């Protein structure tokens, strides 16, 4: 009897191990059986193929609801060609790459992603080249348009531009800051010091930090291998830019805050102006009410002259999984989701969060009236497409450089050495 118990225990041990690893397999088998059942049921009545697609997009309720509506319209529009079912999953654009690359073949057929992930997704072979590239390019303002450049790698278009306005600009509170003061860092800091409040931007983030160097004419760009970054920040005069950032950071009216702390600061009334992106527009507008205003990025003082800050343009794209079973239908869905009508629909359904990238949609009245869109439009002439500028090794070294500058270079490292080391990290071979 004891022996029987011992055998049973050994069995249970092994079975529990199997259960742990086998959990996911089990569910997939059940899913596929149900799918086959529905297939059989429908083929009896119609001759058209069954297509099932998965879409991943923003987890926000507004977006999810809008996706459902757009997908249902898509299903209806193609009802005579195929029997389509679309499953919608919540997957933030900001982290789409991480989930997709975990297992490409298990990822959604169609997914939204931020353009900074374009290069790495292409490198991993996750993206299907856009079939109707010419039409998509045309609709988004031609091959020189930021949205198209952001979705292109080595001359091939990989993403369907879905939303623009993913860049950054200046928010300011008109109760404390005049329009003129909002034009320069000197003015902003003057206003902040006068009111005993603070102006913010996140220096320890390469995305924002880039603005100072870009404005002074320095550049990063993606090498031909679409992975390594070239960068000239440590060439002559680069230290002056670093010094200018140090000067701003040293001002008592400046505070280095991350994205969440910026919103908290605005809500608590300690922050009267800040550089941030369109995704926080709703929260800032709510806090400042009628005094809410947006503008292009301010100028900063470099060697006694005012220099306009540059920025990164940001876009959200729709990608088609190159490993999709129904890649053709997935491309149709991606095209559908990003067409002019649906971009306007999504913009309105999300109360202005999803700024259209399509030229005609962006020109519509309701979009033009949005102060965020206006600020971004003015800033765009000083912006560069992020996906063409930087590869994977850009982020950590620049984050560190920004952190050192934000903390006033506490070790007193020679600025030239600091830039040399940063550039060495940025330009290092990937892997």
């Amino acid at each position, binding site marked *: 009897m004891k*022996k029987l118990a*011992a*055998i049973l225990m*050994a*069995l249970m*041990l*092994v079975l529990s*191990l199997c259960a742990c*690893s086998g959990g996911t397999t089990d569910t997939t088998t059940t899913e596929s059986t149900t799918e086959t059942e529905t297939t059989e049921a429908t083929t009896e009545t119609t001759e058209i193929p069954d297509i099932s697609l998965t879409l991943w997009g923003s987890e926000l309720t507004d977006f999810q609801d809008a996706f459902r509506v757009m997908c249902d319209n898509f299903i209806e529009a193609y009802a005579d060609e195929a029997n389509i079912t679309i499953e919608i999953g919540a997957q933030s654009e900001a982290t789409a790459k*991480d989930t997709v*690359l975990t297992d*490409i*073949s298990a990822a959604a057929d169609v997914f939204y992603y931020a353009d900074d992930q374009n290069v*790495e997704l292409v*490198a*991993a*072979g*996750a993206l299907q*080249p856009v*079939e109707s590239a010419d039409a998509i390019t045309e609709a988004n303002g031609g091959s020189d348009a930021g949205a198209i450049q952001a979705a292109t790698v080595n001359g091939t278009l990989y993403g369907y531009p879905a939303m623009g306005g993913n860049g950054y600009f200046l928010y300011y509170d008109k109760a404390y800051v005049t329009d003129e003061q909002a034009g320069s860092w000197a003015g902003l800091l003057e206003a902040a010091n006068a009111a005993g409040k603070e102006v913010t931007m996140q220096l*320890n983030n390469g995305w924002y930090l880039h603005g100072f160097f870009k404005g002074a004419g320095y550049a990063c760009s993606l090498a031909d291998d679409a*992975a390594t970054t070239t960068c000239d920040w440590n060439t002559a005069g680069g230290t002056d830019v670093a010094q200018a950032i140090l000067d701003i950071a*040293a001002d*008592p009216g400046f*505070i280095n*805050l*991350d994205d969440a*702390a910026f919103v*908290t*600061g605005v809500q608590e009334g300690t922050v009267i102006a800040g550089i941030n992106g369109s995704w926080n527009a709703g929260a800032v507008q709510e806090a400042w009410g009628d005094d809410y205003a947006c503008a292009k990025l301010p100028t900063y003082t470099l060697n006694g002259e005012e220099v306009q800050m540059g920025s990164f343009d940001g876009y959200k794209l729709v990608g088609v999984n*190159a*490993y999709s*079973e*129904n*890649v*053709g*239908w997935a491309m149709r869905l991606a095209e559908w989701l990003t067409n002019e009508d649906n971009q306007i629909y999504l913009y309105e359904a999300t109360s202005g969060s999803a700024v259209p990238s399509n030229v005609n949609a962006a020109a519509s009245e309701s979009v033009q009236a949005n102060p965020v869109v206006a600020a971004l439009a003015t800033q765009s002439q000083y912006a560069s497409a992020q996906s063409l500028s930087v590869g*994977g090794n850009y982020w*950590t*070294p620049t*984050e*560190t*450089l*920004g*952190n*050192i500058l934000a*903390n*006033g270079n*506490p*070790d007193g490292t020679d600025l030239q050495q*600091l830039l040399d*080391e*940063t550039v*060495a*990290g940025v*330009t*290092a*071979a*990937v*892997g």
Partner: protein
Amino acid sequence: MKKRKHDGIRGFLPVRAAKSWLAGDAFVKLTPLLWGVGYIRRRQFVKGFLAILFEVVVVMFSISYGFPNIAKFGTLGTVRRETVYNPATMKNEVNQYDNSFLILLFGLVGLIVLAVAVIILMRIVAEARELQQKSEQGAHISTFREDIRELLNQKFHITLLSLPSLGIIVFTIIPLIFMILVAFTNYDQQHMAPTELFTWVGLDNFKRLFNNSLSETFGYSFGKVLGWTLVWAFFATFTCYFGGIALSLMINNKRTRVKKLWRTLFVICIAVPQFVSLLLVRNFFADTGIVNTFCSNVGITDFLKSIGLVGAYLDHIPFLTEAGWAKFMIILINFWIGVPYLMLIATGVLMNIPTEYYESAKIDGANALQTFNRITMPFMLSVTGPYLITSFIANINNFNVIYLLTQDVYFTMDTKLAASNAKDIDLLVTWLYRLTNDYYNYKMASVIGILVFIVCAVFTLLAFNYTFRKGREGRFQ
């Protein structure tokens, strides 16, 4: 003499199998071709059938998965994935491409299956020869029923351990060898299966740990991270250990009232999931968090500035954002989280120290410090020695505390660390996590994983060797 024969020829299995095969009759000689033939000749039909069935399974697996992948094992594949979109079918047409990841995995499984099969075949050959001898001597040849009965009695250990052993091979050994193999390939973001191929690079990844240039800083980072990992493991283990003992001594003191209340209060800390406490504490100690607001209002921030602990430049205390402060805070917060556990363990141990020791010590005139040093601590150490070692090893791999407290908050100011995606407060294991999860640098993560294993193994061996040295266990008496 007869008994020895029944036990079969002793010796190293391959030698035994070879000798058996050479000495055996035609059926033994045929066994490697048709595994069950030796059994069937001796009328052990079920066993023979099972052996043939096993052979068929092994051969089929090897033909369909094993050999094709083992053949490509040397290169890990040469054909890249190419797709062409066919507008007519609305599908991608894909070539017959090699998936390096699967080749590595199935190649490894194939090799292990072959190895296991060869071992089993050698046993079968030896057994076939034994059966031949038995039948020649006219000895009894066991029936299948008798074999089963034997497995439940004399050979019960085999019955009991075969399934768990299989489990260990499938779920532990194979993944472990796979991970180790990855360290010798160039599997990283530029070589991600299934789209790209990766291949063997020998010891290149290990060499990178000893390179040190401006853009190649893995060696520098590894040294720094390893140093902090050991410092952290030391402090995290011993602060909690002595803190827990001190706390339980205080609670168990005769003069302490409502002992149960105090004990319960500390145990409540355990009831809150650790990650919740850690994330909350992270927010408390943020640069604009509640603790900083308080310190700044009360004047602590200014005081710390005046004595130079906080840079003159800052208007907050960089609890979790400056290397020195963050390291101190991490150890402190870990102390707060870990002490209740140690308090419980220490209470249990202390209650088991016979009171006679203390009474006789009292009669001999020993003071409190002397009793603690000569009775309490030796007793504690002898009982909790193994716990201390395991807890030191666990702290080397203590992912939660470091990651949850500093993720998204801590930015390094060391440009060389940044170039290899490490941070001052990273343990080897959090660095490894970042390399795989954010940068897909599987090859370097694998190298670091192997080194973590070596570090842990060395410390465990040293510590256990010291603790369990002969005669040490009873020493305190």
